């Protein structure tokens, strides 16, 4: 009976962010099974998403009340189950929410001394790779709870491409738009909307 705890421990270890991929854990000989409920990756509920978005961006989604039920919030009249599907509807509304909150957060960053999104790299820091990396490391920690110490961590690559791809931003507005896109990308990231 010692095999099962060891298997679970190994599975838990593999779940942890940043862990290196190792040999797959032993599986039940009849085939893979769903993880135990307590160890299952879950989607944020509607309320959790709205609160997380506000904490991460500093901005509330003004349309949340309109779309809370579409995001899965039960009305406790007809539906009592919390909807947590990673559905097309959810992804669409998360995109809308992220675009609104990120747009406002970045616009505010450009006009105030206290910044939320562009903390380590301002809109004027165009072409400064080191600042891009520093700000992305900060945003990964802020949005996803992931500490990236290495400046060449492969998880930064897609976002650096987004920031640096040609045609390179030539104005503060264009640079801010790139940071809005990064912010939206992190809000819609699977690790932001699940836990």
């Amino acid at each position: 009976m010692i095999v099962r705890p060891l298997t679970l421990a190994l599975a838990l270890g593999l779940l942890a962010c940043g862990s290196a991929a190792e040999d797959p854990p032993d599986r039940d000989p009849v085939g893979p099974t769903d993880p135990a409920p307590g160890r299952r990756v879950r989607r944020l509920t509607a309320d959790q998403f709205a609160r997380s978005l506000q904490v991460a961006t500093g901005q509330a989604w003004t349309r949340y009340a309109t779309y809370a039920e579409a995001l899965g919030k039960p009305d406790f009249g007809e539906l009592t189950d919390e909807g947590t599907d990673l559905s097309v509807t959810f992804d669409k509304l998360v995109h809308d929410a992220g675009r609104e909150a990120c747009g406002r957060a970045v616009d505010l960053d450009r006009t105030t001394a206290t910044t939320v999104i562009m903390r380590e790299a301002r809109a004027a820091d165009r072409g400064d790779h080191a600042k891009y990396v520093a700000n992305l490391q900060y945003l990964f920690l802020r949005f996803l709870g992931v500490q990236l110490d290495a400046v060449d961590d492969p998880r930064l690559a897609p976002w650096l491409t987004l920031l640096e791809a040609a045609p390179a931003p030539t104005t503060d507005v264009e640079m801010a738009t790139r940071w809005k896109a990064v912010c939206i990308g992190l809000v819609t990231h699977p690790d932001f909307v699940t836990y």
Partner: protein
Amino acid sequence: MTFHPSRRFVLLGGGLGLGAAMLGIRRIRDVVAATPDESLRFVHVYLNGGWDVTLGPDTRAPGTYAGLDLGTARLAPEFQTPLDVTVGSTPTLWGAAMAGLVPHADKATVFRGVNMNTVAHATGRAYVNSFIPPAGTVVRGSSLATAAAAVGELAAERILPNVTVGFPSYNTAYSRKLTAVSLRRASEIQGLLKPLSTPLGADVEALLASAQDQAASCVSDHYPGPRPADQLASSRGRLRRLMAENLSAQFDFGAPSADMVAIRDRFGFAANAVTADPLSVGMTAALAAQLVRVGVSRSVTVTMAPSLDTHGAEWATQHPTRLKAALDAVGALITDLRELDPDLERTVVLVSSEFARTPKFNGRGGRDHWFANSLLVFGGALRPGVFGATGADNLGLQKIDLATGAPSDAGTVLLPEHVGATLISAVGGDPTPFRVSPIAALIPGRS
């Protein structure tokens, strides 16, 4: 299978851009209607609250019955006289609330005396979700609409193959792409289809999409359950196609365009229903019709609200009017679908409620919950007719001969799983999960 943009989508995409200025949506709708579509279209309409079958599919001629009080005198005059209808070759009576369905009686199969085995709303709702006996209030198996969505090859145009409005949906056995897109009410479709807010510009949008596709999740490939990144990638692919197709104008039910005016007229709802009456049965039916007509969905489930759960004297006023409004909307839905498929050869419309209402009145002048339910199916998949029966004098459950549908002491009490197995088998699906044999007598070519 390689996806080639169809004539439909080319015309939709280009047409919508020009439509407002030149042709209007009507022309596009005509083009869509002319597009051949060979795949199954399945619509499940759930009437919320428990319908009174004596006002609908299982009525009696006004008179005196020992165990049944029709309450005819309590009803408004327009609901007192049942309708003489021939379903298949069977002359029968339908309640006056079913007037909107009479034009489609030629394609109707009426199941009577279906034993719901419950008088609890949640349990009955779970039962008519999968048509498999629930575990308490918990649905077992996949929703019937999901099973229907899985029948045959799924065309690439079906970006939203399975949509449900106000009704939970389950998928325990089929491809993840068949898991229903869930809306709480019909008006929410615009939130799903309207273009993404705050466009970033085409070049940055493309860069964002690329970054999203490459972004790694911290959930290992060895995680034994469905990986969120994979689920999200599947949803995101469909979302991008939805945005690219620019379908929102097809579902803008409050718009002043000629086509939307025609839809509102057909389904009987006002232009401001999107905001003023988001539970409008007409708008809900219109959404189901449009999803199927435009071709993005194969299977649609809608809840018709408000509730039919009338336990008091309001039974005499609210129940028949609400039931008629809902069934009129279903009639309009079938009329709409028959424009594409006149004989409903590839179309099935199922109408259900979680149970029926008692044959006698309670002390408050209303009716409570009753086991012996009816279910309606419209479409060429089943032989038209009346199958099953309730006690003529008391609306009681009766055993029937499954070969004929007629009462038989040696027979079987009809259950929802008989209906589910028969329906899914008739359209080419697998009836195994229902654990009963399909009723061969109802399936053309099998008896």
